[in-house]
C-alpha cells in the first residue's frame, strides 16, 4: 500500500497526459505559438478543479500544514530557472 499508492496515482497521471495528447511534440510547440490551446485547457481545468477542492478541504481542516506544499518565492531563481525550462520545453517538445 505504501508503495502502491504513488504508483497508482502516477499511472492515472500518465494515462491522462497521454490521452490528452500532451505527450506529443506538436501539442507542446503549438501551444507556445498560440495555435493549439490543448495544454492551457488541460492545465487550467486541472488547476481550477484542484484549487476549489483543496480550499474546501483546507476550510474543513482536512489539510493541516498547507505550507509544506508551497515552495518559497525565490524570484531570481524562478525567473532564470523558469525561462531555461521554457527554452527546453520548446526544444524538446515535452
Amino acid at each position: 500500500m505504501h508503495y502502491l499508492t504513488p504508483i497508482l496515482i502516477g499511472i492515472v497521471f500518465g494515462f491522462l497526459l497521454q490521452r490528452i495528447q500532451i505527450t506529443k511534440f506538436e501539442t507542446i510547440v503549438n501551444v507556445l505559438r498560440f495555435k493549439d490551446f490543448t495544454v492551457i485547457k488541460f492545465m487550467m481545468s486541472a488547476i481550477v478543479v484542484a484549487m476549489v477542492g483543496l480550499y474546501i478541504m483546507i476550510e474543513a481542516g482536512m489539510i493541516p500544514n498547507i505550507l509544506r506544499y508551497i515552495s518559497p518565492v525565490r524570484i531570481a531563481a524562478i525567473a532564470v530557472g523558469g525561462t531555461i525550462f521554457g527554452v527546453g520545453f520548446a526544444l524538446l517538445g515535452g
Partner: protein
Amino acid sequence: MSFLTKKRWSPYVGGALLGILELVAVYVSHHALGASSAFTRLAGIFEKKFFPSHFVTLKYYHYYKPYIDWTTLAVLGMFIGGYISARLSNDIKFRLIPKMWSKRFGDNKLLRIVAAIVGGIFVGFGARMAGGCTSGQGISGGAFLSVSGWLAICFFFLGGIITAFLLFGNKDY
C-alpha cells in the same frame, strides 16, 4: 467502454480528472503531484554510489535525500500509465523525428537528437532551479495559489513562447 479506446479525450474532462487526482494525492498521501524532483533523487542515488566523495560536498542532497521517494514512484507510474493509454487507444508510434520538426529542419537524425538532449538538460536544470516543473510548480503550485507556482508558470511560457517562435515562426506546419 469506447472511451477507453478513444484516441483523444477532451482536455477539459482530462484536466478536471487530473484536478481530482491532485485532491486524492494530497488527501491520501499528503503529497502534491510533481515529477521533476524524481530525477533529483535518481541523480542523488547515482552520485552517492559512483562519486561518494563528491556527493558529500553537495548541500542540495541534504534537502533532497537520495532515495526512491513518493514522487519517484509516481513518475515510474506515469511511464506505465502513458504506455497503457497509448496501447489501449492504439496510439503507439516509434518516431525519432516529430513530423513538425522534419518539415522545418529536415530529416537529420543527429540534429534532432542533439536538440532533444539539449532541451532535456534545460528542462531538468530549469525545473529544479525554478522549484518544480509544469506539474509540481504549474498544476500543484497553481492549485495551491502559491506565488512561486504562478510566477514559474509565467516564466515557463515566456521562455517557451520565445523559443518556439524563434524555431518555428508563425507558419502552420
